[in-house]
């Protein structure tokens, strides 16, 4: 007979009745992988040279926190209202929403957030003074972005520019119909408010030497852009009715209305050519664009080409000038040769080759060249020059101690957004140098300057999203000024979003790679191991009970969680 232990009988209830929570059992020890919240780089921001934190800002707008979004956007980018008008917005081309109804109108959203934040209250708080002084040579977007970020970091910053007012090509190149002066002026006023001093009409190399600057300042940033005209290289171009495009634009944009021939050929296919042609049209000159490749190869922002065509401007593609025809001291035409497209060149575009014997004359009485500029770097010592560019390494550091560089003179990227991004990056490098006395070993990408942690090694493309959670929602149209009205005025062509439209658009954003507390992880956890943080943003994973199944990672719509190996 089996003897029952009386103690056992005492302990045992009549029926076995469990009243302890399994929470006491640490089933989390079973796992060999564990999920972690890890924001990643959205495809849009990955392609944003200025390094805007797009997904976070869209999330804030979607939640109705419009001012917080505007503050975030302006926190390191001083030119959102400008970029929201002139940026070629590469971000939109990779926007993952393309697979679900069309890219988010990020460009228009930037403009909306920029226009919302002209009040100094939107500026970040300025760090206490470091006592250090920085000179920025060149007041274009690169110089402005560098100066703004350095001033906010507590340094004393002076920008020297040879033009009557700061802005670089934003003021002397990009016309009002794309970027109203008032917008640029308000953004620059904010930069001054952030502590930057602008000294205009001062040309380094003429009015003040680099050595003097290096003595007076703790660091010098060279951001002088491309302002030296390049010759066309054809007979007859020394005629006074053959103009340089950026010089002529500058005169028009700074208010001059020069006597000009009635019909003028505009040679080139970049933004300068488009802006010259469209500006000429607006002051009563009849422009004819002459470009040696086809529309597809034009370096200008495609929307600008379309707008120019809509305004009725005449285009001659696959046409290269060979001679300015001068008769009796007057320009009567531009002799051109027809081109055909051959093999692709280094830029990947098909190289134009002349068709023999195809010469013809485009009847014009003036010519404007818009074939690109190069840098004028004579004020720099030889060692700091590398052909057309400043000799700066990936960190934007030149061989001259304490001299840094940013913008077109470094990258030749030729966009405002790239200039702003480099301005941000050079500011970070100079800040490290001034505060720690040493240079960083590596230059982080501009997104590495965000104040929220993001895994920069992982970009979220549509393949990383969980399509089960997204429905197709079409992209909205933006208002545009009537082409006929445009022909005679410098009024802004593109319209912007209203507040309601901006919120609706932000709600279309998939917020790729960025936790937006959608709660899928929380709801789908079979182990009840995920909890809201309560007051703080986001969730916590209870490591004692998470078994590492990874459903949360799989069901996250936006790839904001990752599975990591458990360290034993």
């Amino acid at each position, binding site marked *: 007979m089996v003897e029952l232990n009386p103690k056992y009988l005492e302990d045992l209830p009549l029926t076995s009745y*469990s009243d302890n*929570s*399994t929470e006491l059992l640490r089933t989390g020890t079973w796992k060999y992988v564990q999920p972690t919240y890890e924001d990643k780089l959205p495809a849009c921001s990955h392609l944003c040279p200025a390094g805007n934190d797009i997904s976070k800002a869209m999330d804030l707008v979607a939640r109705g926190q419009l001012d917080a979004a505007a503050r975030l956007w302006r926190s390191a980018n001083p030119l959102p209202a400008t970029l929201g008008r002139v940026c070629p917005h590469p971000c939109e081309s990779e926007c993952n929403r393309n697979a679900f109804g069309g890219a988010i109108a990020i460009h228009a959203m930037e403009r909306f957030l920029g226009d919302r934040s002209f009040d100094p209250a939107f500026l970040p708080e300025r760090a206490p003074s470091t006592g250090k002084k920085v000179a920025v040579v060149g007041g274009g977007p690169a110089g402005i972005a560098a100066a703004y970020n350095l001033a906010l970091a507590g340094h004393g910053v002076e920008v020297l520019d040879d033009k009557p007012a700061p802005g670089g090509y934003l003021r002397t190149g990009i016309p009002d119909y794309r970027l109203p002066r008032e917008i640029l002026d308000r953004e620059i006023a904010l930069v001054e408010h952030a502590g930057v001093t602008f000294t205009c009409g001062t040309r380094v190399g003429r009015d003040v030497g680099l050595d003097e600057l290096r003595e007076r300042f703790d660091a010098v940033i060279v951001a002088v852009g491309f302002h030296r005209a390049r010759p066309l290289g054809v007979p007859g171009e020394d005629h006074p009715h053959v103009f340089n495009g950026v010089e002529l634009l500058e005169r028009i944009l700074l208010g001059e209305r020069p006597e000009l021939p009635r019909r003028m050929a505009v040679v080139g296919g970049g933004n300068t050519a488009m802006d010259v042609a469209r500006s000429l049209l607006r002051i009563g000159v009849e422009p004819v664009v002459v470009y040696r490749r086809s529309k597809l190869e034009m370096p200008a922002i495609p929307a600008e080409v379309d707008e120019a065509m809509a305004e009725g401007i005449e285009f001659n593609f696959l046409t290269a000038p060979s001679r300015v025809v001068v008769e009796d001291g007057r320009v009567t035409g531009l002799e051109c040769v027809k081109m055909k497209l051959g093999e692709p060149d280094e830029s990947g575009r098909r190289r134009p080759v002349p068709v023999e014997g195809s010469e013809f004359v485009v009847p014009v009485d003036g010519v404007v060249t818009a074939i690109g500029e190069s840098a004028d770097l004579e004020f720099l010592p030889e060692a700091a020059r590398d052909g057309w560019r400043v000799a700066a390494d990936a960190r934007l550091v030149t061989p001259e101690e304490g001299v840094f560089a940013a913008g077109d003179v470094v990258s030749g990227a030729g966009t405002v957004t790239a200039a702003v991004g480099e301005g941000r990056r050079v500011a970070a490098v100079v800040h490290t140098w001034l505060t720690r006395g040493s240079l960083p070993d590596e230059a982080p990408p501009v997104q590495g300057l965000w104040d929220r942690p993001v895994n920069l090694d992982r970009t979220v493309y549509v393949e990383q999203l969980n399509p089960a*959670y997204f429905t197709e929602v079409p992209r909205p149209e933006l208002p545009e000024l009537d082409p006929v009205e445009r022909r005679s005025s410098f009024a802004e062509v593109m319209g912007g979003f209203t507040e309601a439209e901006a919120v609706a658009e932000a709600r279309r954003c998939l917020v790729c790679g960025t936790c937006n507390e959608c709660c899928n992880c929380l709801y789908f956890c079979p182990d*009840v191991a995920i909890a809201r943080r309560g007051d703080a943003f986001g969730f916590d994973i209870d490591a004692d009970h998470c078994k590492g199944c990874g459903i949360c990672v*799989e069901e996250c719509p936006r790839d904001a969680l990752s599975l990591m190996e458990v360290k034993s």
Partner: protein
Amino acid sequence: MAVDLTMYDPRNLHLPEHEIMRSGHMACPGCGAALGMRLALKALGPDTMVVIPACCWAVIIGSYPYQALEVPVLQVAFETAAISASGVRAALAAKGRDDITVMAWAGDGGTFDIGFQSLSGAVERNDDIIYVCYDNEAYMNTGIQRSSATPYGAWTTTTPVETPKAEPKKNMVEIMVEHRIPYTATASIAYPEDFIRKMKKARSIRGATFIHLWISCPAGHKSEERSSVKIARLAVETGIFPLYEVEYGTRYTINHEPAFTDIREYLELQGRFRHLTDEHVETMRRNLEWEWQRLRAKVEMGRKLPLPPAPVKAPVDEGEREPAAE
């Protein structure tokens, strides 16, 4: 603070916050049955009693003296889920308590096979219980033996790859429908809002209700743990497991129109289907098409028919139970 994210996209979920299931339970990682219970109790709230027969959940819940649910649970013999729930209901009635929901929670083996007669009896009497069959399509707890819920072509330890299951899955929902109970529905862990709505609806009905919940089982389906919800979603989107509900054995509603994704996408994620030939898959496709024709025909028929005349197993009491606490 929590923001209603349905504003971003209509597919953002919005579920009750309340948790009745606790962590530390014994389910395998990625267990669909654990997720299913968690969601079910979110819907039913704390005034619930649960009856669990032999099945994985009898283990998942924890062994003495631990248990994972913050509501009373009665563990009973394999074949007795429904009759035991009827007994709990009778006991509650004797005590004058009509504010408690009684849920029987059983596996497919315990429902389609061994518990079939007791279930048929309980619903024939229209006992006031919610019977949830969480269907992982085999006897998983005892090591993956075939049940009558195992689908055509599937591998189990008793239907090896050389001779996979040759018969189609038993249509349990239709059998319940033919008992003319007030409410029968299918549900999926991948569609938690739909599932929770159906559980709340069942809770509001005084009479027998049957919910057929499809769940994934990484161990038994030979699938990745992280794919449990994805596979459950594909079961619905391929059309293999339609989401629908039937009132009074007559009124059919399809709750989610599937995308009719290629069934291969679903099959490929599960090792239990790895051996299938193109011929098998073609048979499955033809069956799927036929099942949908049949289902749609029933929707049509239900539209034309009036509700059944008395004596009907209408809810005992027209009044609705208080909605479950959130």
